[in-house]
């Protein structure tokens, strides 16, 4: 009776220990988004106003002076990093017409909080947009034990929408 319980416990522990890692290579994500025919990468050099908005969302400056993105018609794709607890979580975002079309956690390096990779979490962002306060127009439910990861991805979603707005505004002007 004790042995199966021990095996179950070890299985659960090993499953959680190896749950992090590379779920999808960033360029494979981009290829998938654009049906294996991705456009050339472009970059945005955030101006001071955009930098301040990003800082307001993240609570710190985004690392780097330029951010790469891929754009086709009204769809933009972004691969962004943000630290959950100790290490960066790499997440891919697809924005269509100012609304989130897809969120996928690509690389998870932390030891806890990997549950955010699952669709039950990422699907909450479908069709989300920014309201006038630069917040998401909906509430994202937390996952207990993964609060910091949830917070990181939610912040990145707002940053991706901000960047999409900036790219489109630049193109219109």
């Amino acid at each position, binding site marked *: 009776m004790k042995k199966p319980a021990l095996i179950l416990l070890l299985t659960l522990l090993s499953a959680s220990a190896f749950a992090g890692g590379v779920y999808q*290579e*960033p*360029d*494979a994500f981009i290829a998938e988004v654009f049906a294996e025919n991705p456009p*050339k*990468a*472009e*970059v945005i050099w955030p101006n001071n106003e955009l930098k301040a908005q990003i800082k307001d969302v993240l609570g710190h400056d985004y*690392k*780097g*002076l*330029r*951010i*790469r993105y891929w754009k086709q018609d009204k769809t933009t794709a972004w691969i962004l*990093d943000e630290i959950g607890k100790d290490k960066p979580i*790499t997440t891919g975002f697809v924005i269509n017409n100012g609304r989130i079309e897809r969120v996928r956690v690509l690389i998870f390096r932390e030891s806890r909080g990997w549950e955010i990779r699952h669709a039950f979490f990422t699907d909450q962002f479908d069709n989300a947009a920014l309201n006038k306060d630069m917040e998401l127009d909906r509430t994202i439910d937390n996952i207990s034990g993964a609060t910091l990861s949830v917070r990181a991805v939610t912040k990145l979603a707002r940053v991706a929408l901000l960047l999409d707005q900036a790219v489109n505004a630049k193109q219109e002007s």
Partner: protein
Amino acid sequence: MTGRKPTQFTVFLWHRRAGLAAIILVIILAITGIMLNHTKALKLDENYVDSSLLLGWYGLEPEGEAISYDVGEHVITVLDHLVFFNSYPVTRTEQGFHGAVKAEQLIVLAFDAELVLLTHDGELVERMPTGHSFSEIKRIGIKYKRPVIETSDPLYYMADEHILDWDVIINEDIAWADKTTLNDTKMTVLLESFRGRGLTQERVLLDLHSGRIFGEYGTYVMDAAAVALLWLSCSGLWVWWRRRVRQKKKHHFQKHHRL
């Protein structure tokens, strides 16, 4: 055969044992305590430790050798996973460093599966994971002022001027990045930067006094020394009092009941 009562003997025995066991820790506590009381006079907060052993114990001594590449008038160094532009830390990496070149618009650093772009002033522009576009990067060079990467295939890729897109080229007229060695002055400045403000003598004495220098359980060891001191005080008092009572009785007996 000592003539003491069993209780008194036990207290005396444990008094002696506690004293012997705690002697080194009590000496450490006493000396560090006295020194810490005179931090200002001894300038403990102004003097820095330069012992490699202690710096290593605190994790302030870098592991591994510095790998440096000249990029124009600047130098890029990776030391113990930290990437430096001259002596300024720019970012961290867990990957192997394969060189750096100064391209027309940016400085490009090559790691196993990542490129890091810096401005000519050393500001971080972008980190570019190569993903499966390139196989493992082996070295980086320059051709027509544009960065060129050699992968393990081997294949040679040259970037466009904005370092957004890569084309396969042939291995011709490529100036590969060469490692350089930092002179003693530059190495000293780099190590100072790596260690931050360094380790003060006061910090070491405080950690020695509290036991934290011995790690997670060090504080409990010092707690035990403090408990031992308390025990020594009580047991010493007990032994002294018992002895005094006994001597009084002895004097009384000698005085009044002498045969």
